[in-house]
């Protein structure tokens, strides 16, 4: 079975329309995001210096991004000194090749994996599969997604769109094909489901010779990688197998060990709404007699340096993948993550995916910066102060500019026309006169009902107001701003 892929997904509005009809997902997301929002608000509210922490988190990341070349060299040196082998990967193909080569050298045909966004980004599992190597996801939700041949829909809770009876069915059907089967009398009780996953995974932990992880942070001065998780599966992957390969985006650096203080407060409170996450694993290279004998670190670019080159967009590289922006996003709450066509869903995905892939690559990518009402809830929640609405608007500008010179579509023509009209008060007044005349045609209790396309995009579900008899500027001119009003209704009191 080859893993599911985001390749070739339709543009956001189309994918979203389908997702909106998925009642199971709608219900799950409504409940889950509401719960997590309340938890997050609670634990964030109890930290007096939360705003200072956010500013500190942003400042530390900006320091790294501003001097990334130096920090990367420092990290490479400290990792090497600690006994790790550092590999540099320009793109997904290079990173995947490094991991496959290491696996081949050790003659392994399977690896266990700690949940990692970056290996999803480079589609490592598919590459391993093609090389005849099985990749076993060991995070519970990631396991559900993998066994169900499904795509993740949330950064932190990738199987958020599933309910427990679906999980039970997937376990019963798929576990046996991939290892220890689930008991035939498996119930959909969460503890029972977790028990089945434990038995299934334990066999893999004890057998696997090689593990693949990502990292939440890479400490430049000590050469330490950090993985933050909740289930203990990470701890197992990071300590049991003989060979450990970690794929790390180059933006994951923090300068010093003490900087972790800031992020280990920001991350769990923003992501799971916990004061502290259950498991924090840190390792610096190889420690003889303790943990893996061979430690590899693959430092991945894959578009990050071009994000860095974008003055406005580079703030997206501060992201610590906490998923707070998803949980507060009213669009995400209704569409779920898969509509965003990338491992990075929600508001952060809407800015990061187009920047990593490049604006103008395809219609689906270019639709992402528009997948937002610009309400600003994400910016308000982000622990590292990424002004997502600002970046969205900036990327929309780039989308439009990338299409200049081609045949202008309806939107472009409308926008050019509207700009001409709205640059001059007299032109606007003429338009308003026309609108006033059209009132007689469309008038129906002051409301316009269903209209043909493209107006149907508005009127299919909503009434539109009928244009008034007289615009404000016409009223002002006629009555001298109400000062010359002779009739009672001439002070403009009548219209609605």
């Amino acid at each position, binding site marked *: 079975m080859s893993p599911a892929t985001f390749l070739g997904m339709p543009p956001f*509005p189309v994918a*979203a329309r389908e997702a*909106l009809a998925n009642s199971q997902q709608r219900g799950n997301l409504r409940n889950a995001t509401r719960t997590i929002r309340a938890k997050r608000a609670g634990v964030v509210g109890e930290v007096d210096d939360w705003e200072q922490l956010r500013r500190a988190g942003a400042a530390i990341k900006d320091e790294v991004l501003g001097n990334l070349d130096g920090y990367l060299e420092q990290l490479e040196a400290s990792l090497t000194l600690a006994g790790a082998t550092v590999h540099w990967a320009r793109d997904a193909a290079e990173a995947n090749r490094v991991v496959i080569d290491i696996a081949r050298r050790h003659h392994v045909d399977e690896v266990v994996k700690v949940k990692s966004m970056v290996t999803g980004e480079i589609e490592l599992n598919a590459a391993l599969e093609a090389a005849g190597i099985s990749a076993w996801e060991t995070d519970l939700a990631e396991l559900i997604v993998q066994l169900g041949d499904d795509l993740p829909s949330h950064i932190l809770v990738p199987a958020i769109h599933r309910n427990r009876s679906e999980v039970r069915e997937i376990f019963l059907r798929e576990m046996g094909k991939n290892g220890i089967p689930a008991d035939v009398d498996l119930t959909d009780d969460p503890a029972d489901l977790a028990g089945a996953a434990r038995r299934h995974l334990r066999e893999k932990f004890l057998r696997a010779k090689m593990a693949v992880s990502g990292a939440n942070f890479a400490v430049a001065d000590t050469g330490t990688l950090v993985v933050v998780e909740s289930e203990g599966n990470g701890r197992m992957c990071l300590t049991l197998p003989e060979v450990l390969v970690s794929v790390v985006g180059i933006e994951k650096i923090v300068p010093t060990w003490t900087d972790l203080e800031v992020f280990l407060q920001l991350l769990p409170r923003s992501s799971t709404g916990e004061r502290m996450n259950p498991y924090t694993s840190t390792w610096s290279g190889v420690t003889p007699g303790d943990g893996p004998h061979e430690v590899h670190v693959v430092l991945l670019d894959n578009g990050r340096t071009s994000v860095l080159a974008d003055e406005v967009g580079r703030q997206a590289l501060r992201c610590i993948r906490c998923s707070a922006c998803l949980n507060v996003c*009213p*669009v995400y709450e*209704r*569409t779920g993550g898969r509509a965003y066509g990338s491992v990075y869903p929600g508001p952060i995905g809407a800015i990061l995916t187009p920047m990593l892939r490049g604006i103008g690559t395809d219609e689906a990518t270019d639709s992402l910066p*528009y*997948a*937002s*009402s*610009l*309400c*600003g*809830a994400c*910016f*308000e929640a982000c622990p590292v102060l990424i002004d997502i609405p600002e970046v969205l*608007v900036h990327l*929309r*500008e*780039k*989308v*439009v*500019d990338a299409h200049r010179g081609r045949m202008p579509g309806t939107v*472009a023509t409308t*926008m*050019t026309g*509207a*700009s001409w009209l*709205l*640059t*001059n*008060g007299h032109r*606007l007044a003429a*338009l*308003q006169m026309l609108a006033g005349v059209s009132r007689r045609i469309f008038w129906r209790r002051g409301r316009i009902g269903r209209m043909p396309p493209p107006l149907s*995009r508005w009127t*299919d*579900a*909503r*009434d*539109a*107001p009928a*244009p*008034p008899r*007289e*615009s*404000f*500027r*016409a*009223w*002002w001119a006629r009555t001298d*701003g*109400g000062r010359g009003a002779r009739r009672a209704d001439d*002070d*403009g*009191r*009548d*219209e*609605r």
Partner: protein
Amino acid sequence: MEPSVMKVAVFVTCLNDTMFPGTGTAVVRLLRRLGVDVEFPAAQTCCGQMHVNTGYVAEAVPIVRTFVEAFAGYDAVVAPSGSCAASVRHQHRLVARRSGDPRLAREVATISPRVYELSEFLIDVLGVVDVGAYFPHRVTLHPTCHSRRMLGVGDKPEQLLRAVRGLTLVDLPEAHECCGFGGTFALKNPDVSVAMGSDKARHVRETGAEVLVAGDNSCLMHIGGLLTRERAGIRAMHLAEVLASTEPGA
């Protein structure tokens, strides 16, 4: 500066000017009642937000130019729209930068900070919370995203409503969630926009209010359009119109 000697202009906004003139006239009546002689510079048109937020920043340049020309020389500019005021204060400098014209950038830097959303102008500049209004109805307030998150008006609209005689203000569930209008978002992603709006409309109905109030007619056009389609019997009304209302004969 004393309000009576301030040179104050209303930036009525293109949407209100064209579709909701009653909001503009309400602002004029309200401000005059409070002793402010407000002017309407007829050269004004639009803030350019629709263009900027859709990515047509180059096309927004002449609109912003028109804006700064229309409002040059005023001490304060009052807009009955949190969204348009936020666009002027936060986006005009981006547009000016794109134009590459340093003079436009200077003019924007002078004028943008003098632009206020209505509730800001009333409370922060005039220092009034009780504007002497009378509105004997059950009302719920939708605090619009841009006024709250971009301008930081906080609970100013609520304070103003609470001081209105006869008015009963009922809390809106999930008040801070976006209504789904989002400018061209409503057309580019109509399905998501309507999904968000229908939840907002449902919460409005849950309050049992007769009137839904907000400081932005764009959001009201969206939520109100859903409410009338449902024949909900709830009126959408701009904050300015509530605040301009007085007892008959008063």
